[in-house]
């Protein structure tokens, strides 16, 4: 029981970390970034390449990976999304197509297989109350908690952060105050990508980097976002924890193969009972009043 609780917590935090970038981007710019999963594994692979093939220092590799992913995110916006901005259908299609493009090219180039792993931060494990948990997972917990606190602080206390929240609440008002919508959108996509990269660096060491992970990450992020309320960072966090726990309990009580069922059931339930998600505002639902 205890192990389910502990792993549930860890799982939940991992989910929160993975989803953070997606939610940030949507909450600020109403931009559904379907390339989220692709950027995730791209970041991991960039770091891997820099670290293993080019022999760069680990920290430097990570840093470069973060920057380049953010850059790519912004580039996606400037080159592609900006041209179809406003037509929600096209935005979705374009980011999705870019994601596929990236992931399948990576697959073709051979970036698949167990040799693609990132090193864990600290190896070894620790026993707590009879439950074995490796150090890296604790590192994840710590880092995620720190990141969440940082994001909270950032969006509530710094000028840029507050501006982002303002835009998230009312884009038109923000525009009237002179904030450039396109610049903000590309920034938010860049931030979201950077968060995805960060999540990748932290979480990928737990397993190998595969293209399938890219798809899974997208599914999970979407599921968590829907449950928590598209565009609500707080809701996403709670939803991630909920799903993390549910997943672990389902796996323990019913069977390990039912982990995905939990996600699907959660989405269906949410859509029927409270479609805006746990913390979503109902205003978000309808296009306009």
């Amino acid at each position, binding site marked *: 029981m205890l192990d389910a609780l502990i792993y549930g917590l860890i799982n939940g935090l991992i989910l929160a970390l993975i989803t953070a970038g997606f939610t940030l981007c949507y909450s600020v710019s109403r931009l559904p970034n379907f390339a989220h999963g692709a950027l995730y594994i791209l970041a991991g692979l960039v770091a891997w390449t820099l670290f293993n093939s080019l022999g760069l220092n680990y920290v430097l590799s990570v840093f470069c990976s973060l920057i380049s992913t953010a850059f790519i995110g912004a580039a996606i916006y400037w080159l592609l999304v900006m041209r179809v901005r406003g037509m929600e259908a096209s935005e979705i299609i374009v980011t999705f197509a870019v994601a596929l493009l990236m992931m399948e090219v990576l697959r073709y180039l051979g970036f698949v297989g167990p040799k693609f792993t990132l090193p864990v931060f600290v190896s070894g494990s620790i026993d707590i109350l009879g439950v074995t948990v490796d150090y890296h997972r604790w590192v994840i917990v710590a880092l995620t908690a720190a990141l969440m606190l940082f994001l909270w602080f950032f969006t509530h206390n710094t000028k840029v952060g507050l501006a982002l929240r303002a835009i998230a*609440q009312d884009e038109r008002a923000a525009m009237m105050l002179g904030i450039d919508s396109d610049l903000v959108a590309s920034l938010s996509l860049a931030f979201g990508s950077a968060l995805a990269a960060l999540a990748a660096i932290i979480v990928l060491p737990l397993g190998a980097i595969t293209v399938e992970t890219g798809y899974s990450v997208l599914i999970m992020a979407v599921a968590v976002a829907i449950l928590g309320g598209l565009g609500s960072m707080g809701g996403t966090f709670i939803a991630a924890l909920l799903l993390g726990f549910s997943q672990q309990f389902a796996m323990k009580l019913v069977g390990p193969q039912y982990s995905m069922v939990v996600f699907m059931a959660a989405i269906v339930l949410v859509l029927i009972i409270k479609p805006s998600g746990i913390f979503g*505002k*109902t*205003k978000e639902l309808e296009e306009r*009043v």
Partner: protein
Amino acid sequence: MSSQLILEVIGLSKSFGGVKAVDGVSFKVRKGEVFGIIGPNGSGKTTLINTITGFVKPDKGKVIFKGVDITGKPPHEIAGMGIARTFQTARPFLRLPAYKNPVVPLYSSRARKMFLGRYGDRDHVALDLLEEVGFERDSLTPYKPAGTLPHGYLKRLELARCLALKPEVIITDEVFSGLSAAEVASIMPLLEKLNMSGITLIMIEHRLRELFRLAERVMVLEYGVKIAEGTPSEVVGNERVKEAYMGTEVM
């Protein structure tokens, strides 16, 4: 005009985020009267209407239509019960030709009941409705795409859309806005005619002079709160109302 109540709103409240758009508004509308709702910008008039017609769910309060509680019902149900509304920015179905616009409501279940018999040819019913609201029957105007019509016609089109439901109440949201003096002068008799035929009118308006010629009773909102109610002359003389519109500075 009977003294029978057709619409009763009790303690309606709605907040968006931290802003109280409508705060405890109550009023009654009698069957067959013309009831005006006025107030400076941002006083919550449109939100009030959205709440009554079901586009927005109120936080508190009740809306009672002909004795039935319709609070929180979805918009199409409320329209189906006989309350039609126009929208502040008149947006007809742009790409459809004008005469197809009133055809759309004819597919509702209410229209099916009301127009029994004549229902065979929806296009004809629609053309009749357009004639009723002032489109010249034998001109090409009804056949043009709705997006190309001048503003005055668009307002009439909205009213035709309402009439397709054979409503008992029509709520107009700033129907005079964007119209020239001549256009207003020509649309007033139409509204009078509709009212004479038994339809209760609830009109949100900014053009007070025109409204006061039609309305028997008027309610004033400011920041979501009702600050006055009465006949036009009573309301015009009200100090609070003057303050709301002019501000508290003495000119």
